[in-house]
């Protein structure tokens, strides 16, 4: 630096003053740091308990940043613990109670009251009840339902049983298979169930005589006779359960099955709870449906396997429908011989629902 010789005194004074000022400034900041109270008083606002309360509630402000690529998470997932408690303390035990309770009730019903037999011997004349296409869809949906129910139950309860039973190697394969089956057959079930519901909707519109049917408990106990059309009150309840709860289970299943549409954790937590509650409930009711359709009622299963039911069965369980279609009854021998009944293969006329 060039300093003019003409004014040496001025520069000396200027430099001295500068050094003095800087020195005083440093001394002041050192003093300030030594006094903790004074420092706290002059400090920036910084982090307050309110900040952390906000974080705990899961809120994120406009200036929230996350260094993780394409992250849509907040700092603390506030609803995770609620989901855990609802799932583990409510859905899980009560699902077991619902399904286990249903099994016990059915077993007791079967032991105490027993099968619902036909009131008279079979006439040997058959009525077409379920055409081939409905039977095919029904059994596909039924098989898928059973597979999905078993895999779903395994996802919820399997770890309490199978890991210690089979060992880790088998357990790992079993669980990854379970998840694959559940996730890939689920959508297929969803689509086919909707097709089936659409196909049998016309039989299931509620009618006045359904009320009387419920008042008499569907005639499940004793010899009481109750009026019913093509579908009775119980069948209609099962239909509408599937058409409501079933659709909800399918919809929530899709939310869980395709996480690639950017749905958040909170959405999937609720989808999971709704899916589990709906599916466990439907599984419990399905046990009743399976019981009544197989060992619970004499002559019922053949309607869904062969498509034809006996006249006596139709009179017992669906008298209003029987009155409409009794003229179309054909003898067993003719069916066995492969003879086509008049109007065979067509949908039975659902004149009285």
């Amino acid at each position, binding site marked *: 630096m060039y300093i003019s010789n003409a004014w040496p005194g001025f520069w000396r004074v200027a430099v001295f003053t500068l050094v003095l000022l800087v020195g005083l400034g440093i001394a002041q*900041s050192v003093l300030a740091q030594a006094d903790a109270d*004074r420092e706290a008083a002059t400090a*920036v606002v910084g*982090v307050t308990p309110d900040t952390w309360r906000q974080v705990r509630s899961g809120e994120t402000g406009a*200036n*929230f940043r996350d*260094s993780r690529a394409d992250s849509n998470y907040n700092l603390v997932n506030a609803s*995770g613990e609620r989901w855990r408690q609802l799932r583990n303390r409510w859905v899980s035990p009560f699902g077991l109670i619902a399904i286990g309770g249903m099994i016990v009730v059915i077993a007791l019903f079967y032991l105490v009251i027993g099968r619902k037999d036909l009131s008279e011997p079979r006439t040997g004349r058959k009525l077409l009840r379920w055409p081939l296409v409905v039977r095919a869809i029904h059994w596909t949906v039924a098989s898928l339902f059973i597979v999905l129910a078993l895999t779903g139950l395994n996802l919820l309860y399997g770890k309490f049983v199978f890991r210690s039973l089979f060992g880790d190697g088998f357990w790992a394969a079993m669980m990854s298979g379970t*998840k694959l089956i559940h996730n890939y057959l689920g959508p297929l079930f969803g689509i086919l169930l909707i097709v089936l519901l659409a196909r049998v909707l016309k039989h299931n519109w509620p009618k006045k005589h359904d009320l009387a049917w419920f008042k008499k408990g569907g005639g499940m106990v004793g010899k009481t006779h109750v009026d019913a059309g093509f579908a009775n009150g119980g069948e209609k309840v099962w239909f509408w359960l599937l058409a409501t709860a079933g659709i909800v289970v399918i919809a929530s299943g899709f939310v869980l099955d395709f996480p690639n549409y950017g749905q958040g954790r909170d959405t*999937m937590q609720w989808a999971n709870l709704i899916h589990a509650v709906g599916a466990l409930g439907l599984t419990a009711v399905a046990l009743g449906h399976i019981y009544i359709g197989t060992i619970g009622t004499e002559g019922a299963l053949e309607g869904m396997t062969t498509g034809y039911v006996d006249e006596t069965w139709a009179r017992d369980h669906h008298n209003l429908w029987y009155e409409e279609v009794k003229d179309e009854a054909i003898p067993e021998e003719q069916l066995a011989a492969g003879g086509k009944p008049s109007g065979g293969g067509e949908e039975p006329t659902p004149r009285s629902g």
Partner: protein
Amino acid sequence: MATMKFMCDAERCIECNGCVTACKNANDVEWGIQRRRVVTLDDGEPTEVSISVACMHCDDAPCIAVCPTETLYQRDDGIVLHDKDLCIGCGYCLYACPFGAPQFPQQNAFGERGKMDKCTFCAGGPAETKEEEYQKYGANRIDEGKLPLCAEMCSTKALLAGDAQTIADIFRQRVVQRGHPDGAWSGNPRADTDNLAYDATRQG
């Protein structure tokens, strides 16, 4: 038995993401997965604060409670590990985790999740050999008597890892002496020359 814990001192974190990088490097973490993240609140405002988050190795870990396959488990020293052979990618641990720790590589059709990956406290995971362990879970520094690399490399010592009691003691001393000239390094011969405890958020 010690109980291992992470603690991030938000007053010190400067959002340098050194922990994120250290973790990825130490554990050779899969592309697209970032076991540790740095969250900044009120970015650009006077109240800005940053904190480094990964698996916090909870005592009553929600992920363990909801996992359908018992992939997740806790060691005696509190470290929560995962067994990749058991994971089916259902995502439940992610729904339950308070800290967004579990991540899933999306490698299959329909967004189906791959096997979960999360912070192991640099303690590896179940495997037959050392090589397999490294390939699946990354480093097992705990086995070598070292602490997690993220905390070891933290430039401001904001991120602490180790026995819960030791961490708590360090933090308690910091809180008491926050803003003190020797910033909780009293008694340390290097306190005057190497003041790592300088609190940048406090201005006198």
